C-alpha cells in the first residue's frame, strides 16, 4: 500500500468534487439549515448528522455502479489512496463541520424567528454535544450527561466508514444492502453474546449445590463501556483500510 499523498492532487480532487456537485451541495445545506431553523435540539442534531451523513457517504462512490462514470473515475491520474483520502475528508471532516455550522446557523435563524414573529425569548443551545439522559437504576432516576464532542465525532465517523465501504462493496442499492448487512452482523453478534452470557451467568450447579450469577447491564456498561468505544474507534481505520483494498481491486 502506497500511503504517500500528493497534496496538489488532493486539492484538485476536492476542487473537482465541488465544481461537479455545486448544485447538490447548495441544496443539501439549504435544506439542512431550514430543518435546523425549525428543530434545533442537540439530540436531533446527532440524529440528522448520522442519517444524512450516511446518505452523503453512500453517494460518494455511487457513480462507480455506472460503467462509464466508473471508468472515468479510475482514469483520473491520482493514487487510490488520494481518492480515498479525499472522500474521507469530505464525508467525515467537511460533513461534520458543515452540519455543525448549519445547525448553529439554523438555531440562530430559528431563535430570531421566535423572537421577532412569536415574541418568545431567543433560546439557543450552543453546546450541541452535551445532552441530558435519564437512566434508571434501582427504581431511581439519575441524570447524567453524555455525547461529548469526541463521542459524537467517533460515532459519526464509524457510521461514515461503514457506509463508505458499503458504497464500494455493493454496486446497487448500497444504503439498503449495507443496512441489511449490519442487521445480519448484529444478529450474529447478539447470538454469540447471548451464548456467552448463558454459559457464564445464570443458574449454575456444582454437585448438589446450585447458585446463580447475575450482572447488571448498567454496571457492565459503566465498567466495560470504554472497551466498546475503543474497539469502535479501532474499527474506523480498519474499515478505511478495507475500503482502500476494495477501491484498488475494483474493476469497471
Amino acid at each position, binding site marked *: 500500500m502506497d500511503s504517500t499523498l*500528493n497534496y496538489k*492532487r488532493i486539492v*484538485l480532487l476536492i*476542487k*473537482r468534487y465541488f*465544481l*461537479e*456537485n455545486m*448544485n447538490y451541495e447548495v441544496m443539501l445545506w439549504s435544506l439542512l439549515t431550514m430543518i435546523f431553523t425549525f428543530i434545533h435540539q442537540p439530540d436531533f442534531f446527532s440524529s440528522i448528522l448520522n442519517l444524512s451523513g450516511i446518505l452523503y457517504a453512500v453517494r460518494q462512490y455511487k*457513480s462507480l455502479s*455506472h*460503467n*462509464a*462514470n*466508473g*471508468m*472515468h*473515475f*479510475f*482514469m*483520473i*491520474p*491520482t*493514487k*487510490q489512496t*488520494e481518492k480515498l483520502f479525499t472522500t474521507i475528508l469530505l464525508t467525515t471532516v467537511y460533513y461534520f463541520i458543515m452540519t455543525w455550522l448549519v445547525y448553529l446557523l439554523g438555531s440562530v435563524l430559528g431563535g430570531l424567528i421566535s423572537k421577532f414573529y412569536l415574541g418568545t425569548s431567543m433560546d439557543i443551545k450552543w453546546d450541541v454535544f452535551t445532552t441530558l439522559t435519564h437512566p434508571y437504576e434501582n427504581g431511581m432516576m439519575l441524570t447524567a450527561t453524555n455525547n461529548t464532542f469526541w463521542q459524537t465525532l467517533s460515532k459519526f465517523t464509524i457510521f461514515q466508514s461503514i457506509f463508505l465501504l458499503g458504497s464500494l462493496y455493493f454496486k446497487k442499492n448500497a444504503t439498503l444492502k449495507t443496512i441489511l448487512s449490519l442487521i445480519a452482523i448484529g444478529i450474529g453478534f447478539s447470538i454469540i453474546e447471548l451464548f456467552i452470557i448463558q454459559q457464564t451467568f445464570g443458574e449454575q450447579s456444582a454437585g448438589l449445590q446450585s447458585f446463580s450469577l447475575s450482572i447488571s447491564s448498567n454496571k457492565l456498561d459503566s465498567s466495560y463501556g470504554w472497551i466498546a468505544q475503543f474497539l469502535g474507534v479501532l474499527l474506523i481505520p480498519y474499515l478505511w483500510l478495507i475500503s482502500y483494498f476494495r477501491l*484498488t481491486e475494483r*474493476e*469497471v
Partner: protein
Amino acid sequence: MITINNLDFHYPQQAQLLESLTLHLQAGKIHGLLGKNGEGKSTLLKLISGLVFPTKGQINVLGFKPKERNPEMLQDIYFIPEEFPEFPVSISNLEKIYAPFYPKYNGEQFNKYLNEFEISSKKSELNKLSQGQKKKVMIAFGLATNTKLLLMDEPTNGLDIPSKGQFRRMVASVEQSDKCIIISTHQVRDLENLIDSIIIMEQHQILFNQSTESICQKLLFKESEFIPEDKNPIFAEKSLRGVAQIYENIDNESSTIDIELLFNALLAEKYKICQLFDN
C-alpha cells in the same frame, strides 16, 4: 510503449474473452483495432488502461503495470470511451477541473479543436449537449491533453459526416513521434488514410498486426467488373462496382488498402494471408 505477453482475460462467471494474447505496439503510430462484436476490443483497451485486470499474463504500458493505476502512467493516458460519463459541468469547468491533471495539456489546442468542431460556447453544460457534441468535446479534450497514449473506442460513432472528416484531420495533425494512438472501431471507412497499422482480433487473439506500409507491399487491392480468367485472387467478394479482389503483390504495384475487404479476407483466408506476412 505497450507490451502484452500471453494475456488471458475473462469477466467473472463468463467465458474466456482473451486467450494467450500477445501484442507489441510502438510509439509514433496510429493503430486501427478491428474485430467482430464481442471479440474483446474494448476490453483490450480497458486492460491497457488498467480498468480491468488480466487473469493471466503481463501487460506493460509506458513502463508501468496498468493494474497499479499509477498516476504517472495515468497522466500519460487518455481514454475516450464509447459511452460517456455524466459531467454535470460546463465545458470551461471541465477544462478547469481536469486539465491540471495532465501536465502536457494545451488550452490553445483545445480551443482550436472546439472551433474546428464548431462548438463556439464553452459555457454550454456538457450534460445538455447531444451525444455527438459531447463526443466532439471529449475528442478535443483528449487530443489537447497530449498524452503519450490515446485510446479511442468507437470515436466516430455519433459524429455527423463533416465531423468525421474533421476528426480524421485532427488526429492526423497530431505530432506523433512519441505518441501512440489506438482507435477501436467498426467504421472502417473512417480510418482510411489515417492509420499506420491494422490490428485485427479474432477468436480471443490478435489475428493480424501489420503496418499499412507492409500490407501495401505484400497485398494488392483491386476492383473490377469480373475476375480476369488468368488471375487467381487470394480473396474476392462482390462489391457495388463488380468484384473486389486481393492478390499477392508480386510486381510491387501500388494500391489503396480496402480495410473492409482485408478484414473479410482475413476471416475467410487467414492462413493464406498470414503466411504471406510470415515469409
